[in-house]
């Protein structure tokens, strides 16, 4: 947009200029005609100028149009000749941070919280004598990287909307670059603007003899995604540390190996290990024998790709990287550079890397927890390596092997993975409130699937004082309802009573007919007779604790209810209820079965009388997986089973059954009570369990063998001194 307005600005100037010259050129014309011609002339001239600008403006976006797509060879890309004296950017500023060197306004407020990335069209740069600035030109890897980015949803072809700009100048390997000319080429980029919001990818920085740990090409304020940063060159929170891509990744297809113990304990398969370190490794081998395997380059093989995949030890030839799979730990020693492509090979083979590279910033360390996938040992402690590694518990080694392989798969395996991870990290910085979580970055899919992060994770026993809100679902059993209300109103911690009137054909009784109770009583009329109405997060529920209760549960004493509330306070993240039920695996039928008999185990509590956190009302109403909610409403059954599934799935915890079993429903309603014993009812409930288990994709319910009773329940102790004496009486 800014650019466009600049064009308009230009044309305004132009029109003023030419119209002022008009009168001198056409002095005696009639004013009307004169104006007409002048306008025509200036319009045409203007058009010409504008067109000319579009055509010849050297670095405008329209040069993309110049890039014709059917020229699908790098050699056909437009050639840019760098003038000898063209400017060079400043060296990277070490104090750059996102808030000083990055223009966040370009990223704007973005409802999708996604940055937009623009890639400069490909051009070939040559110096004034026509020699290219890089010996490889565009490398295969950089090409892969850029096409992956352009395929991703980060990409935009509109430079004016871009938050991040990526030059198409390949600087992955500093060795193949002419530093001065590359810098000049960067500075010539049309939007360079002192490198603001530009991102460079470099994997092999520095060159002999001192091997700097960051790219030597002067780059102003550009962000650097570099492999091999040291703590002195890495600008924390600005640069991104990336891995050195291993070309073997794409070629080698290692068979999947389960974590476990392996033939060798420590393996070193790097070539060109410095002789000082090799001597120390040799010493380790002498001390520990077979457990340590040291490999080196094969001297007798011909050079080239074949030799890169072989390693030798005293004449014995091993396949690389297959041999990495035979070892528990693999040494990744620093070379001239800190970043080593071997790290990628090691991770791929699910071998735990032992990283010896002082001051090295590990790849993607901003988001990846390397402590769960690697062992970092100071170079000085190389002789102690064996002892240190031996002290690691076996299960941790397996865990690290799994984690290492997952890191490779997700973040190292291809240039695409590396590129998109880098962009995601920058994205997380710009929209920190929408950033990926630690778990998203670090947990392999199997852990993501099996782990639970309870939404109520803080260990907290809420105070007694706010009390609970009782929610009574009723249809038309007014008499029974009133009895329930009268009973519940005796519970000391009751804060409010909410009656959910689920009968659309009949109005609730007049206000004067309701029992007089000490706490507020509200009646909510529903639009449809649905079971899910009982779990709706009504605004009227102002307490955390909700007691869901059916309109026929009159057998619970006030002591039992108060005790249930006390137990809920100790377990606010669970369902705490009275009637307990169990699910069982029916081996004959090969499916789940519902059980309501007197069992020694419990995996569900019925919500006909249960305490739970109001948060679960939200989950039930808005986050219930699949079609369960509609299914329950359609079948008018199993809402309690659905609630049990939901809570167990998100918290990973079993419900708590409180107090001894009793006949819950009123003695007069035996006819209705008979219903739950009804065979078809049981079949239907079993169907529900099977249906829900298939929707959840797992059986989240947890079976326990305990229930909660008051501390002194049935103890030989005067009843009147007990807090909850009236429990378990029939």
């Amino acid at each position, binding site marked *: 947009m800014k650019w466009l307005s600049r064009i308009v600005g230009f044309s305004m100037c132009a029109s003023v200029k030419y119209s002022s010259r008009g009168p001198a050129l056409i002095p005696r014309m009639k004013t009307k005609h004169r104006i007409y*011609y002048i306008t025509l*002339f200036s319009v045409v001239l203007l*058009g*010409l100028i504008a*067109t000319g600008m579009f055509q010849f403006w050297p670095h405008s976006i329209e040069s993309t*149009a110049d890039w*014709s*797509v059917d020229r*699908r060879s*790098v050699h056909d890309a437009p050639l840019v000749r760098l003038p000898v004296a063209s400017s060079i950017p400043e060296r990277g500023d070490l104090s750059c*941070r996102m808030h000083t060197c990055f223009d966040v306004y370009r990223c704007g*407020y973005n409802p999708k919280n996604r940055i937009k990335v623009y890639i400069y069209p490909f051009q070939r740069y040559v110096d004034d004598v026509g020699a290219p600035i890089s010996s*490889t030109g565009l*490398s*295969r890897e950089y090409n892969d990287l850029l096409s992956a980015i352009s395929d991703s949803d980060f990409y935009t072809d509109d430079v004016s909307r871009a938050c991040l700009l990526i030059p198409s100048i*390949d600087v992955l*390997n500093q*060795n193949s670059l002419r530093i001065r000319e590359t810098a000049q080429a960067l500075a010539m980029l049309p939007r360079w603007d002192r490198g603001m919001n530009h991102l460079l990818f470099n994997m092999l920085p520095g060159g*002999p*003899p001192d091997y700097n740990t960051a790219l030597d090409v002067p780059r102003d304020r550009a962000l650097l995604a570099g492999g091999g940063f040291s*703590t002195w060159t890495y600008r924390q929170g600005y640069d991104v540390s990336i891995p050195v891509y291993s*070309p073997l990744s794409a070629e080698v297809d290692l068979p999947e190996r389960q974590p476990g113990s392996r033939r060798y304990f420590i393996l070193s398969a*790097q070539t*060109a290990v*410095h*002789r000082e370190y090799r001597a120390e490794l040799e010493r380790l081998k002498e001390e520990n024998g077979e457990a340590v395997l040291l490999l080196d380059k094969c001297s007798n093989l011909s*050079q080239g790709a074949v030799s890169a995949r072989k390693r030798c030890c005293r004449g014995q030839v091993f396949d690389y990287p297959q041999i990495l799979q035979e070892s528990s730990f693999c040494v990744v020693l620093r070379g*001239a550079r800190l970043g080593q*492509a071997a790290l990628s090979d090691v991770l791929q083979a699910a071998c735990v890397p032992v990283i010896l590279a002082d*001051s090295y910033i590990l790849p993607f360390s901003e988001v990846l927890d390397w402590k*769960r996938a690697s062992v970092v040992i100071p*170079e*000085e402690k190389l002789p102690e390596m064996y002892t240190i590694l031996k002290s*690691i518990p076996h299960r941790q080694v397996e865990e690290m092997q799994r984690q290492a392989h997952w890191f490779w798969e997700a973040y190292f395996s291809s240039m695409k993975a590396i590129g998109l991870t880098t962009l995601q990290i920058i994205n*997380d910085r710009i929209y920190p409130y929408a950033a990926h*979580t630690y778990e998203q970055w*670090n947990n392999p899919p199997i852990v993501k699937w099996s782990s639970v*992060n309870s*939404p109520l994770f*803080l260990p*907290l026993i809420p*105070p007694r004082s706010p009390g609970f809100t009782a929610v009574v679902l009723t249809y038309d059993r007014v008499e029974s309802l009133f009895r329930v209300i009268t009973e519940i109103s005796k519970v000391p911690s009751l804060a409010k009573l909410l009656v959910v009137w689920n009968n659309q054909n009949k109005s609730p009784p007049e206000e004067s007919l309701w029992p007089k109770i000490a706490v507020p009583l509200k009646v909510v009329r529903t639009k449809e007779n649905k079971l899910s109405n009982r779990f709706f997060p009504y605004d009227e529920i102002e307490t955390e604790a909700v007691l869901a209760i059916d309109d026929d549960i009159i057998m619970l004493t006030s002591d039992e209810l108060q005790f249930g509330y006390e137990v809920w306070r*100790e377990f606010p993240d669970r369902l705490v209820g009275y009637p*307990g039920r169990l699910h069982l695996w029916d081996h004959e039928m090969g499916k789940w079965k519902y059980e309501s008999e*007197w*069992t*020694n185990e*419990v995996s569900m509590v019925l919500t006909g009388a249960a305490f739970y956190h*109001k*948060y679960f009302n939200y989950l039930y109403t808005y986050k219930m997986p699949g079609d369960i909610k509609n299914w329950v409403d359609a079948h008018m059954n199993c809402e309690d089973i659905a609630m049990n599934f939901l809570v167990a799935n998100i918290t*990973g915890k079993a419900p708590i*059954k409180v107090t001894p079993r009793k006949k819950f429903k009123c003695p007069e309603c035996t006819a209705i009570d008979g219903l739950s014993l009804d065979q078809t009812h049981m079949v239907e409930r079993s169907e529900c369990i099977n249906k829900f288990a298939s929707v959840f994709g797992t059986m989240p319910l947890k079976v326990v*063998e*305990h*229930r*909660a*009773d*008051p*501390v002194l329940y049935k103890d030989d102790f005067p009843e009147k001194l007990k807090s*909850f004496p009236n429990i378990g009486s029939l």
Partner: protein
Amino acid sequence: MQAKKRYLILLSAGACLVLLFYFGGVQVPASSRSPSRRDERSRNGFYPEQPWPDFADSLQAFIPWDQVETEDYNVHTSPRQKRDVNSSVYKGRRCRMDSCFDFSLCKRTGFKVYVYPQQKGEKISESYQNILSAIEGSRFYTSDPGQACLFVLSLDTLDRDQLSPQYVHNLKTKVQSLHLWNNGRNHIIFNLYSGTWPDYTEDLGFDIGQAMLAKASISTENFRPNFDVSIPLFSKEHPRTGGERGYLKYNTIPPFRKYMLVFKGKRYLTGIGSDTRNALYHVHNAEDVVLLTTCKHGKDWQKHKDARCDRDNMLHKCVFASVPLTFLPLWPSCEAACVPVMLSNGWELPFSEIIDWNTAAVIGDERLLLQIPSTARSIHQDKILALRQQTQFLWEAYFSSVEKIVLTTLEIVQDRVFQHWSRSTLMWNSHPGGLFALPQYSVYLGDFPFYYAALGIKPYPKFTAVIHAVTPLVSQSQPILKLLVAVAKSQYCAQIIVLWNCDKPLPAKHRWPATSVPVIVIEGDSKVMSSRFQPYETIVTDAVLSLDEDTVLSTTEVDFAFTVWQSFPERIVGYPARSHFWDSNKERWGYTSKWTNDYSMVLTGAAIYHRYYHYLYTNFLPASLKNMVDQLANCEDILMNFLVSAVTKLPPIKVTQKKQYKETMMGQSSRASRWADPDHFAQRQTCMNKFASWFGTMPLVHSQMRLDPVLFKDQVSILRKKYRDIERL
């Protein structure tokens, strides 16, 4: 006449038009042609909108096969020399652990901290005194500089604002004259304020040499990553130990309170940070976004005073609270359970090295200040629920007392020194936090009782029984032998360890009954009470069943307790329970063994807990408390309950027991039981108060429930019951 000129003009205009079409024409066909090309590309299987061309050439790899590692480096520099060069080059502002810290000092004795003796006549501020005593009371402290790995000055460096009354003069010469100073190597300097109004440069007024800086409000520019530690700012009223729990008592849903966003803080009307704070005024709408500032600062603040200076305790009513980090401590929002909104351009967040602030706060960019209300509104209530709990967790774990701040700082440095035993991000950022999760115990997260859910794993389904034997084995009818047999019969028992803490020599092997599980007899080192909580290598299971020798338990009871423990692996699950109460007459904590309606402790004479607590008891608690326990030969169970409740913030769990248990335990006075001692009870009372003062707060929590088997005492055939023995007398 004019016609001629008119034609001329027309002609030239026409020529221009032709030119225009000529140039424009190049583009028109190009743009009209491009869709057809796209079709062509999509036919070839490319995405039509893919703008990066798909090159047909075979491109070279960025790194040739034979050049993966350069050989010539081998010839040139020795890596050892290179390391030496690094450590001589990177000094001062470029200090890092690799170049300015001497790791060899920590090799011999582990991570020990030395505090210089206090010199007479040096005045030390209350806050700094608190820091020093927190270090001296910690397990890291050593009084021998020869053993130390880290040094802390006894000169007050907290307030380096020259205008402050706490300012210590001539620090430069005082520091230089310390003979252990060694140019600051392996020293850590605590600082809260530096420079002075209005610029607050980060100059401490003396040369810190190679010392690390633990400083509040440190700018990213001056912050040396992995070397300095950014600490939170705290006031002199901040408690030394313990500290209040946060104000989040309810996880109310929906989380919206009266105000959505509150900005509160000291506002400098001029000088540093005033711009942002004045800009904040533009987002104030008096309805749900409110700006509150106190302007009291310096002497002439009245002159600059305006209508926005106010004082109110509105934080309790808000969801988000903005924290311009520069000079405001984090407390108000942490304590009030508001989610902090941090506008921290250029400032390093407290403990940024270990805390994942994105899970606890909304990090805003000061440049996008005006977007903050809409960003805050867009955050889903699920996320707010999580942010609030995490804020409170962090507050309780790392910030609520001076001791926690200091210990966190030391642990961060220790993690750097012993990298291969350091905490993972998960350990720092999940309950119970890094101070209670010691990586020296194990680097495997599954060995701790806290991470089973997060890793999706379960504890090992067997236990190790540890029987504490103090009386010699004389008869075959002694309770210890019955106990051994009963425990060994449990289907979950993996092994039994008899800890022989008796002065008499070990009985012969054949005296022990034959059992199906291995019985290992260990002789206690010094035969002291604490040795029952030693983290013995022989304990291989996650669960430990701790038993007194005179405990009476049936196999069923053990089985049931273990199944309960599997649901609560981080708590103590056991039989006899005790309670504590506040004795307001005597102004101290009371201990009771009476039958009460609630309890807060479960005696470790018969309890199951995770073996990690053995490690924590031995390595986390200070020698002073353990010595007290050993001298009294009492209170070890109380201390264990204090410890576990301090970690979990939850009560222990009592399971049901046969009724004769209590009587047997208390009644067998014929034996030389410690329970028979009349002093015993008074000692326990004293212990409670001593422990509570060390923890700085009372960690015990009451519970009113007990866990029974599902069919316990139900009116149903006993044959249906799995744990029927528990009901039989």
